[in-house]
């Protein structure tokens, strides 16, 4: 049985922890709002890009030589996995769910005899994946110093990916990130970025408008596709960021609640023990008086 003083100390320490988790939850909530706004603001560009890409690729279909970024290299021997995770922990299952998905994917590919290369974005994923896939990790990018994620950061990642692709280092690239569904639910997602995939819009499948291309379709497409890779990565990073703060917020919320429960329990046993001690003292006094 812990003494009264022990209980008192434990209550104080749990209270201090609760204060920290509460503050972290508040910070995460504020950052989540900003991250969500950023993700929302990036949507028009991505949508237009998708539309334009669908139009242009429909127009250039059957053209002489479609760029490799669109059609792929025709093989799927070497896979590049871009694993985007958070820089920090304390966000519930956020990092581990992305890593689990990436690891399962990598193991499946390896068992099929394919070559797997991994590019990690974010410290957490790098730390954990390095344990199992030390030889497979080709590069590591961290945004630790970055306060506000901007397109330049995504461009940096895209630059590395495209550089590898142009050297013929891989055939298929997939990015792993957590799609933001709501504050309490983030879904780890795998999305193929090379060869390009995009939703066929109605305009593209139906009677496409007769565009005049300046310069030619091929040249525009060549310009567009690398940019599309960057946009897809940017989108994934933004979603990931929002998901991270969402996960952190709910993790900190439940931590705060747990701390509250614990304080209640500890206070109850503290009070019970104090009462017992008072009763004990009273009995001692009374029996002492009776003995006289």
């Amino acid at each position, binding site marked *: 049985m812990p003494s009264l003083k022990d209980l008192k100390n434990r209550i104080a320490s749990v209270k201090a922890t609760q204060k920290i988790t509460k503050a972290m939850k508040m910070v995460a909530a504020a950052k989540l709002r900003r991250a969500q706004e950023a993700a929302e603001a990036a949507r028009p560009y991505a949508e237009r890009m998708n539309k334009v890409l669908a139009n242009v690729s429909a127009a250039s279909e059957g053209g002489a030589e479609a760029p490799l970024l669109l059609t792929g290299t025709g093989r799927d021997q070497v896979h590049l996995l871009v694993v985007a995770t958070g820089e920090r922990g304390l966000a519930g299952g956020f990092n581990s769910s992305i890593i689990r998905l990436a690891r399962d994917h990598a193991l499946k590919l390896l068992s099929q005899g394919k070559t797997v290369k991994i590019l990690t974005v974010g410290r957490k994923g790098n730390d954990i994946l390095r344990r199992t896939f030390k030889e497979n990790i080709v590069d590591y990018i961290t945004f630790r110093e970055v306060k506000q994620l901007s*397109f330049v950061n995504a461009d940096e990642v895209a630059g590395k990916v495209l550089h590898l692709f142009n050297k013929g280092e891989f055939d298929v690239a997939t990015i792993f990130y957590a799609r933001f569904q709501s504050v309490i639910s983030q879904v780890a997602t795998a999305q193929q970025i090379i060869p390009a995939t995009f939703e066929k819009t109605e305009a593209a499948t139906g009677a496409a408008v007769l*565009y005049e291309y300046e310069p030619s379709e091929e040249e525009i497409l060549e310009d567009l596709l690398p940019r599309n890779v960057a946009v897809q990565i940017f989108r994934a990073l933004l979603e990931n960021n929002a998901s991270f703060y969402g996960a952190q917020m709910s993790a900190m919320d439940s931590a705060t609640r747990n701390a509250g429960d614990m304080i209640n329990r500890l206070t109850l046993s503290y009070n019970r023990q104090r009462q017992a001690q008072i009763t004990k003292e009273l009995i001692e006094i009374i029996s002492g008086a009776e003995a006289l």
Partner: protein
Amino acid sequence: MADAFNFELVSPERLLVSEKVTEVVIPATLGEMTVMAHHAPAMTTIKPGVVSVKLAGGEVTKYVVFGGFADILPTGCTLLAESAVKLSDVTRETLQARIDAARKDAEATTDHGHKTKLEEYLAALTNLNGAILPA
């Protein structure tokens, strides 16, 4: 009075402009072009330069864009810029930083086709520097 049409200037980070305009001057790769209402559908890439937007009200606002492309339809025009800033917000330092970065990229690449493109980009940037920030 010329007809108004919808003009949108979008960067990956956000939607900068979405307005009714009468006239837009775009720095297309093959030369500047002015887009007005009922323009034939066209798609063009853009080099770094100044986009000048004439609003339906008559006032003109200017933006500096750094590459991208434009999607032109008879009913509207969408400009997807890699990066865009208001002309009044451009400073010599930020522009110089971009020029330096572009130069470094151009020197680093060995691929010829890519190098030519980067050099073109660099030239456009340097031109822009002289045009909007006269020494």
